[in-house]
């Protein structure tokens, strides 16, 4: 019996008059590895931001461990839920290490002064995990888009969360780092029961690593299940409004390709 972490019930959301999500129901249990796919503008990122508490539901509810997300003290929530979002602003000349150390904020005492040796140990460690060893003192502006993205993943890992919510974490990474990021997530999921909820455009990557896929379309969840059962031509063509073929790779994983 797995513990339920997120309980989403009858969740609706609108930006002004534009409705984005309509009456969504969803549960995420501890240890789940969930990928969310679907075309642009169906509310994938919105769903993630309702779970992170950045957006407030128009109606319905999002609860984490039985308590409405908006009612969680920010610090306590951030000790358990890490987020890698799509857009980061960065104006000041912070170094990679400084940015990752900020992930320790929720675990530090209110007037802690400077980061303690444990914070530094964790920051160095997660930077190494995402392949940025030796880049600690680089300023954010001196890093490539992909390296910056990995800094933000490292910062979320530095939160030592139980759940990681990721919004397009691999969009600016090349192939090998896309695989590396997902392999890292998979290991954390398998060996440390890290719950992963990842929004992605890359159906094939999601199919390779996620145990559960959620297909979104038309403001709601169209289907949910294991990649092998879920990635059917009829469903995907319907959701994406595009001619699509579903092939099968050597190990039985479905592969989605565009048709001309």
């Amino acid at each position, binding site marked *: 019996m797995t513990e339920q972490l997120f309980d989403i019930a009858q969740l609706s959301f609108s930006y002004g008059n534009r409705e984005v999500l309509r009456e969504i129901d969803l549960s995420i249990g501890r240890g789940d590895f969930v990928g969310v796919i679907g075309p642009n503008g169906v509310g994938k990122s919105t769903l993630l931001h309702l779970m*992170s*508490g*950045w957006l407030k539901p128009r109606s319905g509810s999002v609860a984490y461990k039985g308590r409405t997300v908006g009612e969680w*003290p*920010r*610090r306590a*929530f*951030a*000790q358990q839920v*890490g*987020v890698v*979002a799509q*857009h*980061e*602003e*960065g*104006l*000041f*000349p*912070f*170094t990679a290490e*400084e*940015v990752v150390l*900020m*992930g320790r*904020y*929720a675990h530090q005492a209110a*007037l*802690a*002064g*400077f*980061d*303690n*040796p444990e*914070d*530094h*140990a*964790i920051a*160095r*460690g*997660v930077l*190494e*995990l*995402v*392949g940025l*060893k030796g880049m600690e003192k680089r300023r954010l502006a001196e890093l490539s888009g992909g390296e910056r993205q990995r800094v933000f993943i490292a*910062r*979320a*890992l530095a*939160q*030592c969360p139980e759940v990681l919510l990721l919004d397009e974490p691999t969009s600016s990474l090349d192939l090998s*780092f896309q695989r*590396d990021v997902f*392999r*890292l997530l998979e*290991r*954390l999921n398998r*060996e*440390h029961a*890290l719950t992963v909820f990842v929004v992605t455009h890359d159906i094939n990557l999601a199919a390779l690593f996620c145990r559960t896929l959620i297909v979104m379309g038309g403001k709601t969840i169209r289907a949910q299940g294991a990649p092998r059962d879920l990635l059917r031509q009829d469903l995907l063509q319907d959701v994406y409004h595009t001619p699509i073929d579903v092939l099968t790779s050597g190990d039985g994983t479905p592969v989605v390709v565009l048709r001309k």
Partner: protein
Amino acid sequence: MTESAGETGKLVFPPQTPTEALAAPVAWRRALAAWGALALLALAAVALSPLVGSTNIDLLRAWGIGVAAGEENIDAAIFFTARLPRVLFGLLAGASLSVAGATYQALLRNDLAEPFTLGVAGGASVGALLALNFLPITVSPLAAPGLALAFAGVAVALLYGLTRLRGPRSSPATLILAGVTMNFLFGAAILLIQYISDPYQTMAIVRWLMGGLDVTSYRVCAVAAVLLVVGGGILIAHARPLNLLALGDMTAHHLGVPVERTRLVALAVSSALAAFVVAFAGPIGFVGLLVPHVLRRLVGADHRILLPATILGGGFFLVVCDSAARVLFAPSELPVGILTAFLGAPFFLWLLFRKG
């Protein structure tokens, strides 16, 4: 990239890298070195600046050494009555404006933001002038900072409301344009006040608007010092949330910062610090822009180090500027606001166009 953890065996998480055990003391050492150096500079400036001015004075005589009993001690009068309070207020004003500027820049993620460019100083000026011109002299010394604070609050609330209206990613230039417009608006209000004032008052207003440290007393210094200790303390206590807010409201939220509350506290405190300075010294521009920028280059962007550094460095900077203003056109004295504007405006333009 997982090679360090090994492909076999369990991944260690959270990672432990004991070799970095020294990192925390290093941060403290770096901070103390920076603060110490700046404190020494500020101290030296305060010690030497009272000697500088249109009249030469003798430090020994000022302290009563070599002055015969009953002899009138002009040196002491100039030193203790005219110059020392001015220097002390310069120190406190520079510190307040700089730490307010650094805070605005982090909160608004805009390195062009400071009390003057945002129109906060303009708002405070209107409030102070209303009190100084239309209230009886018995209440105006108290009412001036109060109304300055109220109008600064109006300016901040307007700016903040406008940026919220535009959404989270309104461009830095938009905010500064709003600040410039705010300055036009408050400028018009000031012109109106001048227009309905008598000629003598108008002259006083014009002089006040140049921004000077000469109208001050030990009592004002004491209040400014208390405000700086309390306000600066609150801001420094928020240094880590400010670091996170500098990365974006959403990021700060995700990392555990109560964004709205933190921003409200920091905006209110920094605006109060700036408004108090304006109420007595008039709008002294660009100090809150120049000082945080230079110091960010020197000590880094971490507000835990930067905010105390801006307090010390800001005080030093304004005292030095005011000393220069006293001697540049000796025997007449230049209001320091004119000097900081001549220094700051080109710097502001450079910042604006560097971005491309």
